């Protein structure tokens, strides 16, 4: 993967309106050959509409979509070099597995021998060997999804589109399929474009994620960047769990910055944020990046927060809520100013969850590279 990746799909100023409702609002983005691209967003944000426009089931009201350099404006779905795995899988109920998977090849007039070989190969790929004669109603949801995958992959499309591929599976199977899909994509080398509202799915599978909000791209970045460097409050809040506080930018230099948050206290960052001095900003702080201490450990806390000037990146509060999740414990803490903050703490030993309980006074600190300053 050293060679420069070429865009396989180019979306240029695409808008889609249904009557007065704007589902997709002037989106432009490139999807690169061979990547696992995820469109992430809440329901109704326009991500599925965008996917359906790539497949050809919806026509853009404005703008153009190019696939492999070719303008798709006048190309119907059955002539596009893409295939789709539908949310409902859309496995043909009156055909067995072999006929389902071979459907597209039969339509294309491929010879019987080649159909047999390619269907067998595709079924092997999705681990459905031995299911050739099964009817769809004799299969589980997960197996039907594999049929739908094989049926699309057998066509050797340039791009495989997946509409909420894991939403109908139970939690365990979903986690397994996340790995399998990523593995499969790596194996076949086809560009995958997936739509999901599930951030775990997006973070675990994608090479790049476009977060869509109200028909617009809120941020386009690799998963880790999305989580650690969200571009705005929507992304910070939608991807993962986050505490957001309003504040004023009081210091902004190339190697340091400070924000005064009335709700949380003085925030210090060990990097610049390039925002106008005195501007209204928001500080995002992930729950797992906040350390909890009992108040008596004042010295320890100060020592821990020594990457910031005195009195910065510290807070005090009272535990108002607790939920033990096994691997971590979530705490709802009321700050001295009255605002709530969420802190998660890994249970590194078996009794860690017993360290804090309701109404405990606690101190908190975080590292100077943890807060993210958001300008919008």
């Amino acid at each position, binding site marked *: 993967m050293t060679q420069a990746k070429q865009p396989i799909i180019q979306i240029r100023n695409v808008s889609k309106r249904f009557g007065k409702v704007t589902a997709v609002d002037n989106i432009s983005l490139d999807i690169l050959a061979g990547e696992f691209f995820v469109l992430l967003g809440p329901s109704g944000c326009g991500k599925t509409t965008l996917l359906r426009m790539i497949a050809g089931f919806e026509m853009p009201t404005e703008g153009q979509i190019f696939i492999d350099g070719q303008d798709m404006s006048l190309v119907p779905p059955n002539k596009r070099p893409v295939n789709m795995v539908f*949310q409902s899988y859309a496995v043909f109920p009156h055909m067995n597995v072999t006929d389902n998977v071979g459907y597209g090849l039969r*339509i294309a007039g491929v010879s019987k021998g080649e159909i047999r070989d390619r269907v067998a190969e595709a079924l092997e790929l999705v681990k459905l060997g031995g299911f050739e004669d099964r009817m769809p109603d004799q299969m589980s949801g997960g197996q039907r999804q594999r049929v739908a995958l094989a049926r699309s992959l057998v*066509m050797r499309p340039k791009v495989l589109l997946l509409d909420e591929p894991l939403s109908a599976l139970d939690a365990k199977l979903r986690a397994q399929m996340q790995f399998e899909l990523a593995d499969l994509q790596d194996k076949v080398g086809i560009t995958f474009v997936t739509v999901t509202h599930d951030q775990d799915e997006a973070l675990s599978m994608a090479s790049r994620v476009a977060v869509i909000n109200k028909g617009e791209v809120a941020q386009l970045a690799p998963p880790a960047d999305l989580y650690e460097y969200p571009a705005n409050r929507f992304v910070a809040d939608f991807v993962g769990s986050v505490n957001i506080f309003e504040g004023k930018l009081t210091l902004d230099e190339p190697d340091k910055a400070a924000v005064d948050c009335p709700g949380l206290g003085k925030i210090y960052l060990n990097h610049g944020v390039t925002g106008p001095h005195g501007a209204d900003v928001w500080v995002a702080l992930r729950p797992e990046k906040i350390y909890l201490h009992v108040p008596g450990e004042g010295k320890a806390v100060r020592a821990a927060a020594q990457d910031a000037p005195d009195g910065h990146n510290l807070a005090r509060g009272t535990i108002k809520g607790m939920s033990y999740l096994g691997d971590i414990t979530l705490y709802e803490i009321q700050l001295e100013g009255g605002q709530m903050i969420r802190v998660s703490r890994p249970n590194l030993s078996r009794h860690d969850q017993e360290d804090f309980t309701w109404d405990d006074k606690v101190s908190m600190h975080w590292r100077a590279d943890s807060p993210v300053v958001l300008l919008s």
Partner: protein
Amino acid sequence: MSGALQDWKSQKKPFAAVVTAPVFWLALFFVAPMAIVWLYSFGQNAGPADIEISGTLDNYKRATEWLYVSIFLKSFAVATLTTLLCLIIGFPVAMAITFAAPKWRPWLLLGIMLPFWTNLLIRTYALMALMGTNGYMNKGLGELWEGASWLRTLVGMQPLDAWTPVQLLYNNFAVVLGLVYVHLPFMVLPLYSALDRLDKSLIEASLDLGAGHFKTFMQIVVPLAAPGIVAGVMITLIPALGAYLTPDLMGGTDSQMIANVIERQFKRANDWPFGAALSFLLIYAMFILIAFQSMRANKVKAA
């Protein structure tokens, strides 16, 4: 729900309580009269209002005369043609309703069902008024004819002869048209219910896999709508086979169907035994059709 119904063997008393009344009703008002008519078919007239059930097969023998066989065959042909036309017209209609915007669907369905709430006799006479020699159909055709004639004069040709109204009524054409008109809703509703249940993403999946609209229709829509098609065909064919009013009012002298012949036996000819025999031959024909259909359904279920 279904569990409770399946357990009727272990819940005999409530089951009996529910089932007794309808069984009694059916026995008294359906099975008994049918049995009497069935017995008549083995009898002969013993007087103006007296039938002697002698066990004779003469009535059935008479029914095999070419005159009656040909009317049976013709009834089948007319009913089959009607069903076929209903299917050809009804399928696009059902598809259109299925794919219409959700807010329009109830209104379109209402449009299909509205004729049900109007008396068949009124509907038939209304249709006849349209199709008469002075009806709107002839008037419309006359306008077209005159338009064509005028166009001919424009290009310097001789005008056409004056329009003579076409005989639309009182022939086989009128009977088939009337039957199609009456039976179309019976075809559209089962087709609609089958198509409505069809997952639309199956159609998209077929298009996505490279099939055009026609191939998608033949390979996906038709096979999956098959139960609706079979139901629609049965529910159209059987009543059309026994159609009485439409051929009686709209048909000519040569377009009577088997039900008209049966009616004549019971009324004008006052030959109840022969009428009964013809009736039962018609019923047997329908039984055979239904048996075929359920055998086919069982085969599909087993496969």
